């Protein structure tokens, strides 16, 4: 009996000390982690919307969406972070869209876990710059092995077709969702 109490007391004591220590560290780290994440999104918004000077988070949607403004406070369009499944894990991207949502202004890959050296190339400028001024009607298409001939086409990375197509699919899904919301908004 004495042993049982000793065992319980030891584990409880270690647990309490550990909990107290961790809550202190967490209190210190949490605001910094949130600030880091915010700074990253902010930086990405200005990458995908190069003329932007300020932005505003739109709260009425159930997904993240930012409206972007130029120096004179005129609306330039939107910045839309979106995520979906890639080849090995979740991919998080952000795209810049014009006001009518028919033109893609830029793409930045925020998070990805694709194969290093192959799929991970989707985050590199050589791939993402293809998305600049891409036509969004009817939707983006990834072509393989040939130079894109239509204004809504991009070339998939050789050896990383799945990752390339995943990016295209995520963008198309996100835009579909945004358009649906815009439509319902007009009807109201």
């Amino acid at each position, binding site marked *: 009996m004495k042993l049982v109490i*000793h065992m319980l007391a030891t584990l409880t004591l270690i647990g309490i000390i*550990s909990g107290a220590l961790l809550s202190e*560290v967490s209190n*210190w780290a949490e605001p910094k982690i949130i600030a880091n994440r915010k700074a*990253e999104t902010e930086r990405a918004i200005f990458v995908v919307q190069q003329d932007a000077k300020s932005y505003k988070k739109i709260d009425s949607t159930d997904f993240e969406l930012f409206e972007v403004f130029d120096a004179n406070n005129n609306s330039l369009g939107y910045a839309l972070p979106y995520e979906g499944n890639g080849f090995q894990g979740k991919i998080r991207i952000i795209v810049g869209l014009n006001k009518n949502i028919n033109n893609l202004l830029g793409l930045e890959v925020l998070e990805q876990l694709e*194969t290093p050296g192959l799929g991970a190339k989707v985050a590199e400028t050589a791939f993402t710059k293809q998305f600049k001024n891409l036509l969004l009607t009817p939707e983006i298409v990834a072509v393989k092995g040939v130079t894109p001939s239509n204004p809504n086409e991009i070339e998939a990375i050789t050896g990383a077709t799945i990752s390339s197509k995943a990016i295209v699919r995520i963008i198309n899904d996100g835009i579909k969702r945004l358009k649906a919301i815009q439509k319902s908004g007009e009807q109201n």
Partner: protein
Amino acid sequence: MSSKPSLSNEFVKGLWENNPIFKQVLGTCPTLAVTVSAINGIAMALATTFVLVFSSLIVSLVRKLIPTQVRIASYILIIATFVTIVDLVMKAQFPELSKSLGPYIPLIVVNCIILGRQEAFASKNSPFRSVIDALGMGSGFLLALFVLGSLREIFGSGTILGLQVMPNFYEPWLIMILPAGAFLTLGLLMGLSNFYVTHKKKIEKENIIQEYLKIKAT
């Protein structure tokens, strides 16, 4: 009781003789997974060393208070606390590094080097000795991860610590940064170190025989 090895021995044994990767073959999961570049290897090893040193210190300090029946649970609690601290600090101060190491930082909790050292060393030795041992093991881990990460980065991307070392016409071997490259590199390195050890032993043996024959002849 036999006399204890000197403090410097306690440190050096982790570097080579008892190297956690090449000799004890412990903690290979993070070793194989994160060594796609030298910097990742260094960061992983430093994070592990931090956890190892502090866990060893605490475990050694409380070693006489913990009942044997719950020692493993207590060690894991102590280790998990330090791992969570490392994880939070990295996320707050080095978000880029924390992203590239991903889930492997929280997984340090189950790294067998750490639990192994608590069970085999810190629970039986004084705090000072345990910290020296932890530093030695950590340095051995750092050495192994740095060598592995550098080799894979040199052949896989043509760079080391982000600086280009291979000539421009060099075509990177993709396999080196894929998981298969990790197994190949680690296997070859272990083979080399074993070859060196057996070679050394053979020479020592021959020397003894030679000496014996000399004595016999006179």
